[in-house]
């Protein structure tokens, strides 16, 4: 029972990492295009990253219990 759980959590964490990576990369590109909108882009980036991050932690806790 342990191994499928761990592999599943690993897959979720890979997905979360790719998601947050894409958000960060896109935010970088957006800031490069429009440096004057940096504040707004950062805010939106942090919110989106925080929402995705929650899923990753949920997966980690599924393994921990």
């Amino acid at each position, binding site marked *: 029972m342990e191994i499928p759980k761990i592999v599943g959590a690993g897959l979720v964490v890979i997905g979360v990492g790719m998601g947050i990576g894409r958000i960060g990369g896109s935010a970088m590109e957006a800031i490069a295009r429009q440096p004057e909108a940096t*504040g707004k882009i950062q*805010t939106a980036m*942090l919110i989106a990253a*925080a929402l995705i*991050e*929650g899923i990753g*932690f*949920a997966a*980690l806790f599924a393994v921990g219990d």
Partner: protein
Amino acid sequence: MLKPYITAIFTFFLVFAGFASAEHNGAHAAESKDIKTEIKSYINHHLQDSHDFNLFELNGSHVGFPLPVILWDNGLHVFLSSAFHHGETVAESNGNYYTLFHNKVYRTDAAGAITLDDHQHPTNVAPLDFSITKNVFMILVVALLMLWMFGSMSRSYKSGKGLPQGVGRFLEPIILYIRDDIAIPNIGEKHYKKFMSYLLTVFFFIWIVNLFGLTPLGVNVTNNIAITFCLAILTYLITTFSAKKDYWMHIFWMPGVPAPMKLVLAPIELLGTFIKPFSLMIRLYANITAGHIVMMSIIGLMFIFKNWIGSSLSFFLAFVLSILELLVAALQAYVFTMLSALYFGSAVEEHHHEEAHH
């Protein structure tokens, strides 16, 4: 060209250290397993709330101070946690005997017997525990600290000198940032004022508590899911009770979509109102807990490697991680405040006419 040589020497030492530690592990496998379980139990112990404020251990004796234990067990029982002697003895109070089992108080007999069921849970009676535990103590300390900081700041404003003196000069830009970049854009010019006190309180509380968690005091207030649960419940209650009719209409009867879709959307939106504070709770708790576990595991590597290269690696990683955790401490406070402001904003938002055409 000195650089390649340095790299080569460094690589050699790293590989050498790896072999050395592998050999060491082979020779003393049993001992290193002991250390691993000890580190694990130490981390678990750190993540739990405790009844006394234990700073560190020196030659097997605990250095710290006791905190009051307040129990309701058919009458009030108040005594100091030093009576437990760190869980080693039975405390007696008004004819009842109490003992600690995994940092929880249970009623027991004079001998301190604990009976366990099949799942290793004690069957002893657990009295209602209102103790000033380590977490409660730290919350009180942070509350007093914040009262002092913001009290002196408001006094400084009242004296009419314009710029605040002392600690207020450091806090003023942060408060302005929360007002201008978190509250006003998310809640709107019209309604933001009545939410400012909550947003500021929750931001500074989470931030200061997280920063205390990084000190060697071993405080872990936001590692406790009960505390993040309470913070999330506050956000949920404020959102629900300040909600205007447009908010409820967007939940139960979403405008601008066909009628069958409205029926589908209503339960999803209703569930969403509970998921939002739930994710607030999990996010803060999990971020800080994960940070503490990783930090203590990296420091624990020092005791597993037991050579200078492993120790310096562990020290370096712990240093880098501490800087990251400083960022995370502020970031989690920011995210909590930001999302709370977002939810308040959706609660007080008024109906826009252009939205009706969507």
